[in-house]
């Protein structure tokens, strides 16, 4: 399974065009980052993997976009009594780190995410007369439901994928999903009899 997520280039370009049209209409630069030029440098081919250093590249998301992303992320995976919400785990910052990165996959996501966030305010204004961040909880859920129902809506699908994957690949996400590895063991445990019984039962049900 590849780390590369294939994105339809034409769809990306469409989103970029939509975002640019919207920002021009409102007389402000795209997402507060209109002058951003991608850094030619990533972390390089021989980074120091032992030292956790600040990310090399500048961040491009505006405060408003971060706020939108936090609200959306917490709608994708709401926190509860036992699980933190994505915004409490820095997921919006991670999305910023991601779309700000000077690599092709992330740059492709930049257009999708920023274009989508821009569209979100536009759509919210149309529907409710104000931007997404000041809607009521119920109105936001209504927006989410509408987006989820839109066929091939790349922004929703991609942001959902990034938010959920980033959440569960965090240390806190490990705990939430029940990943208990990454610890040194003296021996590798064989499956318990209970587990083998489950496998046997499932296989028999499948006829194998």
């Amino acid at each position, binding site marked *: *399974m*590849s*780390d*590369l997520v294939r994105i339809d280039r034409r769809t990306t370009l469409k989103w970029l065009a939509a975002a640019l049209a919207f920002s021009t209409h409102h007389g402000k630069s795209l997402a507060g980052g209109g002058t951003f030029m991608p850094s030619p440098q*990533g*972390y390089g*081919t*021989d*980074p120091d*993997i*032992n030292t*956790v250093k600040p990310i090399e590249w500048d961040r491009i998301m505006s405060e408003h976009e971060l706020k939108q992303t936090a609200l959306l992320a917490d*709608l*994708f995976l*709401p926190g*509860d009594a036992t*699980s933190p919400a994505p915004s409490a785990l820095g997921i919006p910052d*991670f999305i910023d780190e*991601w779309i700000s*990165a000077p*690599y092709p996959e992330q740059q492709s996501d930049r257009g999708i995410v920023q274009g989508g966030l821009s569209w979100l305010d536009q759509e919210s204004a149309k529907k409710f007369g104000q931007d997404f961040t000041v809607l009521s909880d119920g109105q936001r859920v209504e927006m*989410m*439901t509408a987006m*989820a129902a839109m066929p091939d809506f790349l922004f*929703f699908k991609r942001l*959902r*994928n*990034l938010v*959920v*994957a980033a*959440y*569960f*690949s965090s*240390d806190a*996400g*490990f705990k939430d*999903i*029940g*990943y*208990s*590895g*990454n*610890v*040194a*063991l003296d021996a*590798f*445990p*064989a*499956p318990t009899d*209970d*587990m*083998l019984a*489950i*496998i046997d039962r*499932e*296989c028999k*049900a*499948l*006829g*194998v």
Partner: protein
Amino acid sequence: MVVTTSDKIYDVIIVGSGAGGGMAAYILTQKKLKVLLLEAGRHYDPETETAMFNTPEQAPLRGVSTPDKNFGFYDATVDGGWEVPNEPYVSAPGSEFKWWRPRMLGGRTNHWGRYSFRYGPYDFKPYSRDGLGFDWPVSYDEIAPWYDKVERLIGVTGRAEGLENVPDSPPGCHLPPPAMRPHEAFLARGFKAMDIPVAATRAAILTQPHNGRPACLWATPCGHGCSIGANFQSPTVLLPVARATGNLVTRPNSLVYQVDMDRHGKASGVSFVDRITGEHHSARGKAVILSAGACESARILLNSKQGGLGNSSGLVGRYLMDTVGSSTAGYFPALEKLPRRNDDGMSVGHIYVPWWGLNKQKELGFARGYHIEIFGGQRMPSMSLMGDYTDRCATPFGAGLRQEMRQKYGAICSFDGRGEMIPNENSYCEIDPEVKDKWGIPVLRFHWKWSEHETRQASHMRKTFLELIDRLGGTPFEGLDTDGEKAISVGGEIIHEVGTARMGHSAKDSVVNSYGQSWDIKNLFIMDGGVMPSSPDKNPTETILALTWRNATYLADQARKGAL
């Protein structure tokens, strides 16, 4: 061009420090020969440079693959990957080839997959068996004792399986294999229903303390490197022993581009450029071993002389092979029923599927076989793995999405077919007439073409995976196309290049003899995958180690007799 030459004359100069070069240094220094080891990349110390327990959260972008680190932030590949800065290569029009190169001590042994197999008796005599490709000038029985030595030294897991062409090791060679993971027990049932036997994994990972090295601690990916030395890497297993003899001088950042000759037609040393200073140097030795990897060693020979050095056969660079690869991933609802547990174990599958169709090749429509590697279970979440789970969830958002993720986690498994390619005239590397690297050294141009033997095999891999997934009630979601042309990997992508300086019975039909010794220049040896006349489905590293142990022993004997 100013070339700095040292007065020192080494007994042997080795180019490259991976499986071949590391093993050659290990043998020759213990036989009291003075060795200069030239490595194109920088010094690398897995003990201090491997952040074993770091999690994705601690890496930029959760450690995903990027153009800077093609296999992810923590992958043990320094300054390389599909592209090496300042060191281009080209594919000929109509060809696509990918060439993976690290620039570090130990080379690709730092990140390799650790599946470790002996080739079987048929693998050494493929032409005799089906009339395709080329026989090796050695048999399994001749190489078997060297496999024994390698397995006893590096530590390889395995169990006697009694399968045709999958040699069992003599007692005391294999380490005990690890227990199956639950999902592997499940998949084994599916394979059994298809009459496909499953074997215990054969991996160069220690399941018990071995030769002063500790056992695997059942966590962290081998491809990140192992700071405790519990898997096989040249810098943790071979080079420390060589260094301790006092007979080894290692020079990193030394990119060798030429074998130098004396007026008697013998190799007198090598010329190299220091990748940091850009200065050119030459070093002198009584014998030269090229272990730079099949393609880089071919490049050195082809750049050493018009028409290629040691190339009276015209075969240097020819009959380049890689492993056939194809993969499919599927989602298995039955695995949702399993409770949580720690599935880390080894990076490799604890079981694998050796080739089961030896006597069915006529009906299958392709000549050679493949094995299957398996990945799955409740493994460390990554962006790509969790992204795959997210895309399997029906709930668009909300508490239900979290519940669905929890329920599904552990139910994705993926399958990698790894098959034999038959050498062909259309797959080779040569010197590009125009493109040069940063230091003005001409680069390789690759030509590549799979034959129907490979594309049909790739199609069969996919069909096998899809049938297994179907029988086990799963849903495939990646690697669905069974058209062989589309299912097959890109040449070089599996990173098993071999065959560019093949061994044989005579100077006419091969570049080197069965000891890796150039037919044309008797003190010049090739000790890497280049010498292989065929490319069995079984991953090549253990065979490179076994051949090199044997051939370096021969070299030392010849040197002692003054026969070089």
